[in-house]
């Protein structure tokens, strides 16, 4: 299905938000997800199934002042 991750359209076969994050980043800790415009709590990642045209922002903390 077609989804958008960090502003880039892509095809994915992943079923859940959790599996997509793991495939894309290799980790689950230290990641924050905005799912279709609102923050998706980590406890919901496993039970949130991806669907056509979903928009995800995968964010993490980096060095900054």
């Amino acid at each position: 299905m077609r989804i958008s991750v960090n502003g880039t359209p892509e095809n994915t076969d992943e079923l859940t938000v959790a599996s997509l994050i793991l495939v894309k980043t290799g980790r689950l800790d230290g990641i924050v997800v905005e799912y279709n415009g609102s923050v998706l709590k980590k406890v919901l990642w496993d039970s949130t199934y991806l669907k056509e045209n979903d928009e995800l922002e995968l964010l993490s903390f980096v060095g900054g002042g």
Partner: protein
Amino acid sequence: MKDVFKIGNKEFTNRLFTGTGKFASKKFIPLMLEASGSEMITVALRRVDFSAGDENILSYIPKNVVLLPNTSGARNSAEAVRIANIAREAGCGDFIKIEVINDSRYLMPDNMETLKATEILVKDGFTVLPYVMPDVSFIKRFEDAGAAAIMPLGSAIGSNRGIRTKEIISMLIELSRLPIIVDAGIGRPSQAAEAMEMGAAAVLVNTAISSAEDPVTAGKAFSLAVQAGRMAYLADMRGEITSGAVASSPLTGFLGERK
């Protein structure tokens, strides 16, 4: 003598706040924190870079150090509010440094948008530290909005130019009941000491520490300078600054003097 100060619901004894930006290696961060004793450190939020082997910066910050996520990248209040909410959801606590910038050359903050974001985020339960252009007319506005402190810039971010806004920052310190934390532009420990001598509650130093060849020793140097400046402020030094000399030894009774 216990010299503590409070921001939100946290008490601090160390008045040097630090940042995580621009370290050659993240491994320096915990060492710098230990050497300086800094109790609060800033982080930024960005899209995950899938091409880089990126790692969780939070794993380099000891749990007893307060995290101060910033809203860098925000160009207006709505973006700052969005970033703040994401940061809090990430489990970093309620502290947020609001940084709203729409000037790409000098990176000067937009006080109006920063104030709007402060009003919204205080209502949402955040402990808000706005990064601002020093401006006396904004003191009461930020106080009324419920800001936990005011963070005026000393000079442009990363410029190492020191406290170029000295006159106005002195006015903020005198007139505001909020802690004044000088942020941005402090490039040398002597400049940090200067801010503390003026009566600033704390200073925030990032670039000058992280870009030093030895950031661990630099962190310690800044911490000592902040302590020295704070002690000088508390000592209430009254010596007038004069243009001529005022002898400190007696001007009479010189050896070989003839009447």
